[in-house]
């Protein structure tokens, strides 16, 4: 694991943790919300992730990709806690007030709904690759799957998502999870 130091390093301070890890909480929460579709559950997931990161911070190799390291912890926590099936009835509330004024509300709703109907693997690669800007190699490490798998998932995910956005009636046809 390239993010981990080969030997126990000098313990890092809380300030360093804030600068290296806590600054990514927005990205983590943004992805967690779309994984769980529930704000409370997403916050719990991000909190678990950051506490684990803090606990193992002495192993983190300074200068490497902290963001990818955190996302790997996030997904490990997500799967370890059996959150795959966690989707509560109070899905992330999208209202005009919750969106920035510069973006069209209906458009954001359509896209977010279409994204939520994708299966978890497809949603994950679109969030990581397209929204968060991770490379295929980074996604491969975060998700512990080969790069070829990431590429094929990304291709299929884009195809499925585009089909949903072109034909909104498909929005109701949920894929098997």
């Amino acid at each position, binding site marked *: 694991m390239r993010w981990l130091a080969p030997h126990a390093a000098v313990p890092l301070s809380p300030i360093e943790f804030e600068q290296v890890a806590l600054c990514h*909480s927005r990205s983590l929460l943004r992805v967690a919300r779309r994984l769980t579709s529930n704000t409370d559950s997403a916050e719990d997931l991000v*909190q678990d992730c*950051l506490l684990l990161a803090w606990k193992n911070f002495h192993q983190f190799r300074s200068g490497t990709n902290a963001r990818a390291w955190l996302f790997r912890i996030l997904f490990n926590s997500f799967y370890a806690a059996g959150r795959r099936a966690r989707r509560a009835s109070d899905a992330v509330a999208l209202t005009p007030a919750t*969106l*920035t004024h510069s973006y069209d509300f209906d458009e954001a709703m359509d896209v977010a709904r279409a994204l939520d109907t994708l299966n978890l693997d497809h949603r994950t690669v679109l969030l990581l690759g397209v929204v968060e800007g991770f490379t295929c190699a980074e996604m491969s490490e975060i998700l512990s799957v080969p790069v070829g798998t990431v*590429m094929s998932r990304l291709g299929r995910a*884009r195809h499925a998502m585009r089909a949903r956005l072109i034909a909104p009636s498909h929005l109701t046809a949920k894929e098997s999870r």
Partner: protein
Amino acid sequence: MTCPEIPELAPLYLAGELDAARAAAFADHLRGCPACRQELAEESAFDKRLRSAILSQPVDTSAVDQRIRDIIHAPAQYRWNHFAAGIAALLLLASVGYFELRSRGVSPVAIAAATDYRMEIADHQPRPWITNRDAIEALASKQSLPVSAISSLTPAGYHFVKGKLCYLDGNWYLHLVYGNALGDASVYLRRVDLFASSGIRVDKIAAEHVAAFQHGRLSTLVVTSQPGEAARRLAESAAALI
């Protein structure tokens, strides 16, 4: 490079991950192939659309950030207590023997409730609790639970403290916390599809007592670290009120 290779390599090309030779071959193909060029342009436009839509949603991390800051800046002993508590709770099932409990007929949801109570109530792991009664009633309503549950389930001598949604053994429960001078008691509620009634079963799981029963379509668990009889009394009181 051929047309069938373009969609395969497009994710790497768009992410700038193709080596120089293959990137050049990819670009060469695009220059001579309007169909692939069109396809890639649509893919780029789609990516932009998705990114803009998701990034336009505000993300408020203030609560999580504050809870993390509280923990990492806390004195070392206190910080260790938080970790120790979390680890202890996660190891709870192992230490008391999950399979031993299951062999005694203890339900997985009762074990999950005891673990949840240990982490969130006994060990005070930071969580986004809701203390506002109206907000809790709205949450109850969303879960198809009677909004009067918060008041009507308040055991004699207790007062409502806080609540939140929690996930136990594959299902969402409304977790209500009531307190008195002796300590806290948690009530976990879930509406179930099957109408049924069952007696109250009390199990001791590690340091907690869990009383579980179903009445009508309401599945209820009462968890407390007080003695088992207290858990049974609380459950009986809740069952009578339901």
